[in-house]
């Protein structure tokens, strides 16, 4: 049983998928059971839209971004170290979409694979 401070060790940390791909930050956490003495993390919330609970600037960013909140079940979490590593591939969790869209354009330019 190790003691983990969620605010310090999980929130705002880098997410890595199964293959080590960087696929966002832990933008917020969904907790449950706070009222029945069984507090636990249900899911990680990822994406600009998830920032609306993170103060004034977070609300602003969530407002101007049009993306959806990505919900990643806590069961998907493999390890919590410097980064939070997930058990699946980013694409299967709906993560890393922004990079996928940008890749579509970048790969058309000559020398994109250098």
């Amino acid at each position: 049983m190790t003691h983990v401070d969620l605010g310090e060790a999980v929130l705002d940390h880098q997410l890595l998928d199964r293959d080590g791909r960087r696929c966002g930050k832990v933008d917020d956490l969904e907790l449950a059971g706070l009222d029945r003495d069984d507090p636990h993390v249900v899911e990680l919330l990822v994406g600009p839209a998830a920032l609306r609970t993170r103060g004034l600037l977070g609300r602003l960013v969530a407002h101007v971004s049009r993306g959806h909140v990505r919900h990643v079940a806590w069961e998907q979490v493999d390890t919590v170290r410097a980064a939070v590593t997930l058990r699946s591939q980013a694409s299967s969790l709906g993560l890393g979409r922004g990079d996928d869209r940008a890749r579509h354009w970048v790969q058309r330019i000559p020398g994109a694979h250098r």
Partner: protein
Amino acid sequence: MKAIFSIALGVLAAIGGFVDIGDIVFNVAAGSTFGYQLLWAVVLGVGGIITYAEMCGRVAAVSKRAVFDVIRERLGFGAGLVALAGGVLVSLLTLAAEVGGVALVLQLLAGLPYRLLLVVAAVGVGVVAWTWPFSWIERVFGYVGLCLLVFVVAAIDSHPEWGAVAHGFVPSTGSGDVVVYAYYVVGLVGAAMIPYEVYFYSSGAIEEGWGPKDLGTNRANALIGYSLGGILSFALMITAGALFLPHAIAPDTLGSVALAAQSPLGVIGLLLALLGILFAVAGAAIDTLFGGAYSIAQFFGFEWGRFRTNVGAPRFTVAWAVLLVLAFAVVVTGVDPILVTEVSVIFAVVALPLTYLPILLVANDRNYMGVYTNGLVANVFGIGYLVIVVGIALAAVPLMVASNMGQGR
């Protein structure tokens, strides 16, 4: 042998990252206004960047976090976003200044119209960033930038009064206008500690896959690289103090700086100086370009790094491309790159505390750092410099206004 190669990261950081257009402008302006009196401010700034580069390199090697990972974790989203906005704005202004500087040097070499050369400079920086591997960028700009050593020869040949030079290493309030003097202190320390250096340095450490076994290399890079940068800064200031101050010349272009190397070494000296400035400033342009893109990618958690190829880190690629286009848009208006440089350094000073505080906090966190947590020496310097950085951050803008950007009242 591998150790020697890995020191190259530090040499690039020193030449391309340390001696950039900000250092050239502030050291030469300080030398031609106050002679050797401000050499101590360079020592102060170099000590600061050595302290924090070592610390952020150690944090990267041990905890696998680059600077903006640390900033977001420690400051949280809101304050972190403020730090990001400041950091990216300063990187953008610095990049604009470096691109303008490259065009100015090209103009001296080729004699073509400045705006045409701005296009050449921006396209050149973009092509290098797009096609060259990290190791080439590191070595080519680092080693050709070493041509700047010609200024060490120029400084010695200018026959400065060595007693006065030695005296300059002792902090003083200076003779002359106190407000202008204080403005130069802030500018010199700020140019030495400009934040993109640590963004680039720590991200480079992660790109090179550093671990605890590389901590010796880290210390050597920070110490040797930035000390070398410091010696080049001394040389620029001493040369300017010996050649420009007695004749009351205010060198307002990079050309007059390069001319300082012509007097001892003739045309060869002039060419070496121009080549050194060109590669140092172009290298710094690439550092700044990547520094800004690293920050954005690390803050939002998307793929980053030159090692991943352009298509492997697509938003990172888009981020630096957009920064380059915006920087070009700033300088193509015709605004004086030297002016942009001064403004960028002064605003960088304002952004310094938000960059350095989280590094200090994480370097002291035993959960992250284990046995590599800051020791007494790192903390004495770290906390000391944080106090200095907060002080100059508060003073920077008022001094810029009060001193009329160093022109005097």
